[in-house]
């Protein structure tokens, strides 16, 4: 039982990070029907910028309280990523907004590769380690271990998701976003500044990605110019699993994917008598994804696209 609880905790922590990154994919897709493949790299840049700031601060005075240093890093990383996403949208996507859908997809992949290589030039090819400055408190629940950091990750993720939901459902900007998602042309006729709404969507998604990036690097103790790729892929899958374009779906999909991965890796070996090992972790997760898509092609909470057009 304690093993099961532990696997569930493992999955929830991982899943809430997936969910945060998935939000960025799903928000942009909801509005532009564009898969912003550079989003994973924005997450990576967030982690890298925060780590640089943390490094500088610790270098200047090593006695600063760890939590403050990390928050300072986060406070620099978030605006940096927001500016980056604003720039990406302006340079790589806006000129192609009227182009066939495949064109911005290609530029998205291009931007992703450019960002990876830029990060490699700036931060080097080495793994950058996250200094062990955060409080290392540990608790036991039902025989499972959970650290302060894990609690903070889940709590912060849930708070962010709630905040985003409020923003989309309860504010003027949110209403403009929903209107733009339904129809750009009509929204524009109604006086919505579509360009600004789209920019805001990218920028908000990037801010959340920066938070996720810092969480990932703090959780695993490292960051790397390559880390955005797999994280982005998983988060994208989570968004599809939940129903891409649907914000609640991204949250659900992220959490589910994390739990499925943890339980899959934890039990698949024992259940199949060693025939399938834990290296089938990803296979298992994607198998569930395919299964869901066979029966619900638009994801768990996704609406049929035909209804929207």
């Amino acid at each position: 039982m304690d093993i099961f609880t532990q696997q569930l905790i493992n999955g929830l922590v991982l899943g809430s990070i997936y969910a945060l990154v998935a939000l960025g994919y799903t928000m942009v897709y909801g509005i532009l029907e564009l898969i912003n493949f550079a989003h994973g790299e924005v997450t990576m840049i967030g982690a890298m910028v925060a780590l640089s700031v943390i490094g500088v601060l610790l270098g200047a005075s090593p006695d600063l309280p760890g939590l403050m240093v990390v928050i300072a890093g986060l406070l620099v990383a978030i605006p940096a990523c927001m500016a980056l996403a604003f720039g990406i949208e302006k340079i790589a996507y806006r000129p192609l907004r009227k182009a066939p859908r495949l064109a911005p997809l290609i530029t998205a992949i291009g931007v992703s590769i450019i960002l990876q290589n830029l990060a490699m030039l700036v931060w080097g090819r080495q793994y950058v380690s996250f200094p062990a400055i955060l409080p290392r408190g540990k608790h036991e629940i039902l025989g499972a271990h959970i650290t302060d950091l894990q609690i903070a990750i889940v709590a912060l993720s849930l708070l962010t998701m709630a905040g985003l939901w409020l923003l989309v459902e309860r504010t003027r900007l949110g209403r403009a976003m929903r209107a733009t998602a339904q129809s750009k042309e009509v929204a524009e006729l109604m006086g919505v500044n579509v360009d600004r709404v789209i920019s805001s969507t990218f920028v908000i998604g990037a801010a959340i990605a920066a938070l996720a990036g810092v969480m990932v690097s703090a959780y695993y103790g490292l960051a790397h110019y390559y880390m955005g790729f797999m994280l982005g892929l998983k988060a994208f899958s989570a968004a599809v699993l939940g129903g891409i374009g649907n914000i609640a779906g991204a949250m659900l999909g992220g959490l589910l994917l994390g739990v499925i991965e943890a339980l899959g890796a934890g039990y698949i070996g024992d259940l199949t008598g060693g025939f399938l090992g834990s290296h089938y972790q990803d296979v298992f997760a994607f198998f569930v994804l395919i299964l869901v898509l066979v029966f619900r092609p638009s994801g768990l909470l996704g609406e049929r696209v035909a209804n929207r057009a």
Partner: protein
Amino acid sequence: MTYAKFSLYMLVLALVVSLSGCSEKTKEGGEVIRIGSVAPLTGPQTHIGKDNENGARLAVDEINVKGLELGGKKVKLELLGEDDQAEPKTATIVAQKLVDARVVAVIGHLNSGTTIPASKIYHDAGIPQISPSATAVAYTAQGYKTAYRVMANDAQQGKALGQFAVGKMGAKKIAIIDDRTAYGQGLADEFEKAAKAAGGEVVAREFTNDKATDFTAILTSIKGKVPDLVFFGGMDPQGGPLAQQLKRLGLSAKLLGGDGLQNVNFLKLAGADAEGVVASSPGLPIDSMPGGPDFRKRFEAKYGVIQVYAPYAYDAVYALVDAMKRAKSAESAKVLAELPKTDIQGVTGPVKFDAKGDTTGGAVTVYEVKNGAWQVLETVK
């Protein structure tokens, strides 16, 4: 295309343009002899790959400065560095590229997973290959006369580790994780065999991959089986987070690994949780190598901190050039005929090959992290 590759292409292009008409001659009229060096120069293992290339480059530069004569003719060595991205598929592509560029021999590759598929291409082309760091048994067991290595193989290392775990560390219940690469899996298999033979019980065999950072699921599953030792067959980018997550989940088992963990980077990545981790490295600690301290000085003056395999890449180049000198030629076939007779004193110790192409001086050293640094526990022959 990565930046490194791009600049390499530009370099090759510039060379082709400048050399057209006067094929492969230097300004002084000496012949240019090309040696390939392959390692991952992009992706997660870049730092180790660049280290390999730098080790080889240091040797090439030194030999060029001293001046090399083959059969009375002055020649100049040129190192062609290629990036195999630690991908078997890319490895075969760059191997073919080097064959087409008519290199005399190849120093590489870094990973067993890339060295083995590439070795067939070098074998078919009759080009000698000396790997500084591929340790999978299969590499030299294919019967290729072109395959050599200067480092103890996994059978030697895994066996030493298995015996050490049960005999010296007193492990009874052992969990094994590997990253499913030829290196990680091979090492873990050899470890498992030796540990079982020594009387240890393997309670779990789990798997991950060489890009993963999350091991909580498999570690939790392992925790349920209460092992007193966890063996990891893989590299430091995975080993670091693995060590952290092991402690975080409250496992009391000791972590044991191979040469993929035994480096500076692992200490940084695992942080405080590196303490007490035990790992081995084929060969001797750099300071116990006959030419170690001196090599460190020369290397660090040019390239910074040594990651791990640079001295082996360095020795591989010297072994190759030694064979060229005896053959009085830079023809692959003639060099190949001389390689089995290699007997030189390298930085890492004596370099000699057995009939399969494995090194005969295969010592394995076991280290433990104490006070944040690798300390030698003992050297196992």
